[in-house]
């Protein structure tokens, strides 16, 4: 569709992304270069204060913690999601299993996080289980620390990873694994040398689906984390709601957006198709 009509067709989409995507980013961009209003909002006056505030130890620390949580939970999620999706793709009657993967999408995230509080808390399921199994010490607080944040992220983004991986592995020709085995590869060797390279696209998608939302996570560290595991999302909320520093909140948001954009660029880089040569027919 090269003609004028083509432009018409894409108009609604362009309008939609303008209103909900581009304009907010522009607002955030502009706000980050303005001065802070006393009771929130901005004063229309050019200022680099927000950005200079980014060059502080505390912001650096929060960024580092955020990155660490995102990287760690993405890796852990991938390690769980890969074998699960492989199993799903190789199971013939997998409708029920797939449903189990999708069902969490129907339950509000906050409810699911509260469920984790019920599991990990001092009076929670895990402590009861330990007592039942013979543990006689003080109840342990598994909540409100770095690892609780990581675990709940792993839990939350697991289905987001499983689905793209599953749809990719499902298209994979498992006969290739037999060919690799036949040529001398071990079971693990055939998976690593033949399956992984062929499902690369799915892996990169899965990583993005977990990594980008985790980078911007707010509710999870707020509910199950401690001050040591605060993430950039919490800093943004704090600066909007408590410190009344909208320009700083905007600057942090910009940084987050840039990191996500970087991730997507890496995605396109890794998924780029090599230039196709013409197929030459020969006997």
């Amino acid at each position, binding site marked *: 569709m090269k003609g004028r009509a083509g432009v018409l067709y894409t108009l609604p989409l362009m309008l939609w992304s303008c209103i909900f995507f581009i304009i907010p980013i522009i607002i955030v961009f502009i706000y980050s270069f303005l001065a802070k209003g006393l009771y929130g909002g901005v004063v229309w006056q050019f200022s680099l204060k927000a950005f200079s505030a980014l060059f502080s130890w505390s912001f650096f620390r929060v960024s580092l913690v955020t990155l660490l949580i995102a990287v760690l939970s993405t890796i852990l999620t991938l390690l769980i999601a890969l074998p699960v999706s492989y199993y799903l793709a190789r199971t013939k009657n997998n409708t029920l299993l797939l449903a189990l993967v999708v069902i969490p999408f129907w339950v509000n995230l906050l409810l699911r996080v509260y469920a984790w509080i019920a599991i990990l808390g001092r009076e929670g399921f895990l402590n009861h289980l330990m007592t039942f199994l013979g543990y006689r010490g003080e109840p342990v607080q598994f909540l409100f620390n770095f690892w609780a944040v990581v675990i709940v992220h792993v839990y939350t983004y697991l289905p987001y990873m499983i689905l793209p991986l599953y749809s990719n592995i499902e298209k994979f*020709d498992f*006969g*290739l694994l*037999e*060919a*690799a*085995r*036949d*040529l*001398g*590869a*071990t*079971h693990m*060797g055939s998976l690593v*040398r*033949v399956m992984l*390279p*062929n499902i*690369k696209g799915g892996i990169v998608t899965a990583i993005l689906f977990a990594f980008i939302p985790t980078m911007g996570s707010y509710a999870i560290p707020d509910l199950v984390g401690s001050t040591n595991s605060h993430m950039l999302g919490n800093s943004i909320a704090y600066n909007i709601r408590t410190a009344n520093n909208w320009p700083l909140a905007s600057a942090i948001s910009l940084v987050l957006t840039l990191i996500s954009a970087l991730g997507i660029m890496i995605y396109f880089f890794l998924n780029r198709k*090599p230039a*196709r*040569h*013409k*197929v*030459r*027919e*020969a*006997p």
Partner: protein
Amino acid sequence: MKGSRVRVEVVAKWFDDFQALKDVSLDIKKGEFFSILGPSGCGKTTLLRIIAGFEDPSAGLVSLDDQNVVPLPPNKRPLNTVFQNYALFPHLTVFDNVAFPLQLRRENPKVIETQVRKYLAMVHLNGHEEKKPGQLSGGMKQRVAIARALISEPKVLLLDEPLSALDAKLRQSLLMDLDFIHDAIGITFIYVTHDQSEALSVSDRVAVMNEGVVLQVGTPYQIYEQPANPFVARFIGENNLLEGVILSKNGFCYTIDTDGLGALKVTSESRLWEPGQRVLHTIRPEKISITKTKPGGLSKDYNLLPGRTFESIYSGFQSKFFVHPEANEKMQLKVFKQHESFLERGPDISWDEEVFLSWDADDGYIVEAIPQ
């Protein structure tokens, strides 16, 4: 000989309550080009997968040079497979596909380089090293797969209908190449196909299978000329199957009162049939001569049947005729006539013509006795 002797001993395979293989036994010699021939669904792939190690036999043994290989995983068996759908690794170039088995063994890159070039040359694919499988034609893909399967110098090469996805001309040339490669490297080839002309043209021996059972093992000549049972007689080549009761026996020559046709003479050397027995016997269409006039000077052990053609198909090098014998208009016999010389006025016999069919008793063949 660099190949292995492969023995399959009373192998059975059950898939739930379906039995795909029934007591299959084969003894394949070192360096032999051995074909497994049978209609689709008869269990050929299953048998090959058991030999390769992708399936376990439900019962029985598979041994290579007298070593039982059933407990070994596929990567520990010194045999490689060429798959029907090529199974090339799409993410690797032609070079890396062929190098794959050597790279697994962490072979020296220099060695890999020379070996890959050697095996690519063997399958006439030099110059295509950097292409991806997606850029190759079907025939080229299968050549890559053959080079990849041979580079680790296996003792046995298993081929599962490697040519069936290719067009006829290409099949022929690749088959000749396979034959040549087999002669050059001398390992055992086990070649699975449902195409009898492939099996007969290149094999040292052929096993004919149907419904999970090996019906006959023999040289292409034996399979064609001395089929062991009605299935083989029908499945290999074209045939006229006849039934009748033996009237008399004179040395090796039997006179059979054939249903609908009357007395026919058939020679049989291999077995001792008795008068009064009911037997199945055959005459190949190309062994019957068809003439418009009654042939003269026939020896006493000739058969002569007058009849009428009801269909004739001219196909260049030969014509096929379908004939109702005069003795029984309901029967039909197939007759093939080679055109050995130029037909000036076109095919001399057409449909609906009076003809004479004749053949020597030696050309008939008694397949088996039919229980009465």
